[in-house]
């Protein structure tokens, strides 16, 4: 059977020891159930792991690179049918389908219901372009803007809960020129601007070449800054969890796959929260990044991050220590 994606041990560690405890905590303590949207891969590893908490899966799958192009999507659909979970599937990368509003079969894409759990896995460089029939058009990360807009539309016409979770994984790779361009002072909020200044003093972005795994702070700054701008208009407040670095399945013997992974807990504002707020304060400086390695998770500060040896290594503990009042999930079942 076709398998679209083989995960690395570190990826599994992140899922099982970082993501899952949080999802399960919110499920068991506050009754969260999840409508999942993402790229689960033909083996549906995360869907199987979270099966009891999921109501529906909206899944995307790429064409197989060799042989029968439909092999992966067929396997994904067969496995979802076999699993017996309610699902909708699209043929194509999530970014392309979301941006182009059509999948490779020409099926229209439309978000029907509120998503409560995004698992957004940008295996390709996030600062690359989405190809269209008319040539390269949109930046891959712009899919995030569309996703937030679609989610906001659904929120407006539904009476669903205001909370949703983004699991965001990107390849720690960017062209130096693009990094310079995206991190121009005029593009950055004050916090990102300050952070960039501090980082540049210790680990400067070179003038050219591909930054592979060495400048995580640049992508961290860029994505934090980008998400804050995308969250502005739909009034989404966010709690950014520590950045987790890990090594994914290498592209080849010579090309490793350093990855960056975030959990972002989001909520739509109401009358009391007329403008979005972002937590923790001074996130870029104050929250130490983690690294997933053979022994488990450990603190692994990026440049500019202030040392804090008391920062918990467990996701739930971190949430308990850092949860702002705006993320009040109601009475705990415990």
């Amino acid at each position: 059977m076709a398998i679209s994606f083989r995960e690395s041990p570190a990826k599994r560690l992140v899922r099982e020891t970082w993501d899952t405890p949080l999802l399960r905590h919110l499920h068991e303590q506050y009754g969260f159930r999840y409508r999942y949207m993402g790229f689960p891969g033909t083996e549906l590893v995360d869907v199987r792991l979270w099966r009891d908490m999921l109501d529906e899966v909206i899944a995307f799958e790429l064409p197989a690179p060799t042989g029968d192009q439909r092999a992966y999507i067929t396997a994904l659909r067969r496995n979802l049918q076999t699993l017996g979970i309610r699902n909708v599937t699209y043929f194509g990368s999530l970014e392309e389908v979301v941006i182009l509003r059509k999948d490779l079969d020409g099926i229209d894409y439309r978000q029907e219901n509120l998503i409560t759990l995004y698992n957004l896995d940008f295996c390709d460089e996030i600062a690359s372009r989405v190809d269209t029939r008319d040539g390269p058009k949109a930046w891959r990360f712009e899919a995030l803007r569309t996703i937030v807009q679609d989610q906001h539309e659904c929120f407006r016409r539904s009476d669903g809960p205001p909370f949703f979770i983004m699991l965001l994984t990107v390849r720690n790779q960017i062209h130096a020129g693009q990094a310079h361009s995206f991190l121009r002072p005029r593009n950055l909020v004050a916090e990102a601007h300050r952070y960039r200044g501090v980082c540049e003093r210790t680990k400067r972005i070179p003038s050219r070449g591909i930054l592979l795994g060495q400048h995580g702070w640049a992508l961290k700054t860029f994505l934090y800054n980008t998400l804050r701008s995308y969250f502005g208009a739909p009034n989404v407040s966010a709690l950014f969890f520590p950045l987790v670095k890990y090594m994914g399945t290498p592209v080849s013997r010579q090309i490793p796959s350093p990855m960056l992974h975030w959990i972002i807990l989001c909520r739509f504002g109401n009358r009391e929260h007329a403008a979005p707020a972002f937590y923790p304060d001074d996130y870029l400086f104050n929250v130490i990044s983690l690294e997933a390695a053979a022994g488990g998770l450990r603190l692994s500060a990026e440049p500019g991050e202030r040392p804090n040896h008391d920062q918990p290594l467990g996701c739930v503990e971190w949430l308990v220590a850092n949860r702002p009042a705006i993320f009040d999930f109601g009475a705990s079942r415990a």
Partner: protein
Amino acid sequence: MPERIRFTKEDIGGEVLSILTTGLYRDPLDTLREYIQNAIDADCDHIAVTIDPDTIAVTDNGVGMTFEQARRAIRLGISDKNPLKSVGFRGIGIYSAFNLCEDLSIYTRSAADTQGHVITINFRLIREELLREQERRKQQLPPVLYLEKLLENAVFVDVDPQNVVQEHGTKAVMSGLLGDVYKRLNNWSEVAAYLENVVPLPFRPDFKWAKVIEKRLREEAHRIVPVTLQILVRREEIYRPYSDGVFSYGGRHEPKFFTVVDGKERFGIAWVCINDARQVLRNTAIRGLLIKKFGFSIATRSYLEPFFKRPVFNRRITGEVIVEHQGLIPNAARSDFEHNSSRQAFLLALGKLVNDVSVWGDKIQQEDKAREVLEEAHTRAAQINSALPSLVRNQDELLRLNVEVAGIARQLDPHAKTLRSLDAAGYARTRQLVKECAEFISTALMQRSRGQKALEQKIVRSIQREAEEEKKGRPVAPPPANLKALLEAYDLIPSPDLMAFLVYLDETVIQARLSTEEYEETMRVLREFLDERM
């Protein structure tokens, strides 16, 4: 006597599978039907059908199969199912996906088992083997592919390590859909309409008679199987096509249930709803009665039309004839039942059913007609009643209304008996209203006639007086000397008894109690009174 030939496995080529399935299942919907039939035969109470561009899944919560049952299910052209009790019984259906997909996996679990099982059929491999065999034939090489070997290599029954079916039931997953299969199935209304005809679906929750009919069907042990259909993004429960909207006024008549019987032979029951206006149903798709067995439709709704004396009647009703008779076996095309003695008896029972339906329908429609007449009569009578006071001096209009009110009364007459039983109070109220209108008009016309006559008399008297005065050289007429003279002078001639009484009253009471002057004054006052009135 010819020598007996011994057939061996080498005598049955692999091509048989292709020939059978291609011939029987030309339309992907027919294949879908086969797996749904299996679900219904498995006594499930819910079916989910999911279709996307690469897979079709039919999931039921029926009794499922043990390993032995799964092993027997993969036999070709042999079935354990009883044709008298099950929809499918030819033993081909499991292979019907041959022209539809690359792989078929049937996950199943019997309630008695702790472990599920899975049947897998690799249709891609079968097709490849058949193509290779065709190539061999083209090269004039001897055949090597026999049905037994072909199936042995491509069909498996095994323990399902994933236990896909959690409790009991069956899930058939066809993956790697071929060619235009999805294009054919990506049509919600067509697939939903097809399923309506092959599954005993529930009624729409907003159909006002749904509960009544479902209750009766359950009492008769007829199954109702909910189906969830998902085609890519759209996912809905689907229902039988009946709704309040198919009737002219939202369906005012309760459904009627009939037993379909010929002598002692009972074939099933029928439920019938009739339009609440004497018109055909606007939705042509549901006009007439549909015959169903195990939820599967047999023929079309026009099948019973020739049985009606007035075919239009079949178009004013909708409903189903639900057959449970074991001798009635649907033919392969589902266009009729196999010809046998049961079918003959069934046709006779249908004749009787149609007669009963016609009698009932006729009564309903007579009642509808009576109600219509009563409503029209009451409305018009009320309008006339409110207009009458302003028309009291309009003799022409009164005469016209007099005719109309009589007509209303005549319209009510033929329905009197029906209306007394349907709505006695309403009928009495309308009758009273009509009567009051008629009386008012009659009185007004009579009063007008009397007034006219008095005026004419006054004129005549005046003319006569003028003529007499001229004849007498205009002498001053002496005033009447007593009451009798006064009455006679004004032509007021009462009956002799009354006159005698008045004379007695005048002479013994009035004249006796008044002085001469007072009496003359009284007579003058009376003259003035009469002058004014006359």
